[in-house]
């Protein structure tokens, strides 16, 4: 497969910049795989595993929402947070999962509940990618 360039930008830094042959991401409407020569495409991403194929192997990362912008020979991903599978702090993810669950149980207001739910989704996603669930 022909490689193309991908750039993943977070507020803190450029997380990844380099060549890939294929990526698999989850948008609000479902999973998409992007190969070289894809038509221009823009979508919102949800908290999910994010796969990048580099040198024949799929590297997995946990992404917490963002947008993906595709043009025929490059892809830009803008996200608030993304971590490689092997860099995920499992203990911290467990903690924030527990914290979010407790907050959801307290059921204070719709706003709090939604916020906790989002947090739980992010934590679960990190755990799934880290392979602890």
């Amino acid at each position, binding site marked *: 497969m022909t490689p193309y360039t991908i750039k993943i*930008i977070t507020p803190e830094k450029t997380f990844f910049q380099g060549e890939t042959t294929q990526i698999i991401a989850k948008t*609000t409407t479902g999973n*998409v795989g992007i190969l070289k020569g894809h*038509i*221009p*495409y*823009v*979508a919102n991403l949800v908290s999910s595993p994010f796969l990048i194929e580099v040198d024949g192997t799929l590297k997995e990362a946990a992404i917490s929402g963002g947008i993906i912008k595709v043009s025929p020979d490059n892809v*830009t991903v803008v996200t608030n*947070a993304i971590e490689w599978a092997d860099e995920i702090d499992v203990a911290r993810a467990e903690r924030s999962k527990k914290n979010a669950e407790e907050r959801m149980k307290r059921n204070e207001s719709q706003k709090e509940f939604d916020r906790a739910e989002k947090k739980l989704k992010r934590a679960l996603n990190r755990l799934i990618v880290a392979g602890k669930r």
Partner: protein
Amino acid sequence: MATANMKDVKRRIKSVESTKQITKAMQLVATSKMRRAKERAVAVQPFFETLFNSMCEISRDNDFTSVFTSKVEKKNTLMIVIAGDRGLAGGFNVNVLKKAAAKADDLKQKGRTVSIMAIGKKAVEYFSKRDYNVTDTFSEIAEGLSMYGAMDIAEDVASRFKKGEFDSVDLIYTTFVSAITQEPCEMAILPVENLTSWGGQRHASCVYDPSPEEVFEGMIPSYLCGLLYSAIVDSFASEQAARRAAMESASDNADEMIENLSLMYNRARQAQITQELTEISSASLNDS
């Protein structure tokens, strides 16, 4: 010259010296904090630019309406005011808060309802003491601000805007011009304006999944988050720069005071010695 006076002067020198130690330490701390905040402010730029470009492209490529861009007559304004958590930073807090208060009063005169979201302890204190409708307060979040912290606020603002709780959002904060100049500035952040000013060719072939509107609205929280995050970090860098400058001049003043006091002390000592000598010699004259 009395010995009591000399003691006094000596005590004052000591007290000024210990004050100087404090101001000097604060100056150093502010310098390093400022440097770190500046790095964070620079790092967030590419993120925000890409996001904003995409938003511009969407509105350029498509004719659509969104609650976030519609220009209805503005009635309710939310003002997000960012100031520092601590004082001793020269005119930093006063400048930005004065500007915010003036703006709020101006909007009120135009017949709008103004609610205030105060970020930073000084902003919270300032507006709650006065006659303003403060709806949200955030204290001591600037220094360790994470993206999630900013995201929480951004999502909250976006959803309340969508519900129609307010129809415009203004941001007032201090921007870092240079290590010596920091300027309070204001920015209208919602509804999103100036999107089309970027111009360029339409790329009608671009696919937006599921629809341009939804992609656009999905970007809004991130966009706000980016704005808020960079504004808070910018303001924090300015606060540190202002504090550094204030502490530098305080240290300089302390140096000057110490110099003057030392001179005074030495004069007093000299006078005392001279007087003692005169006394001794006149006493010996009397003896003989």
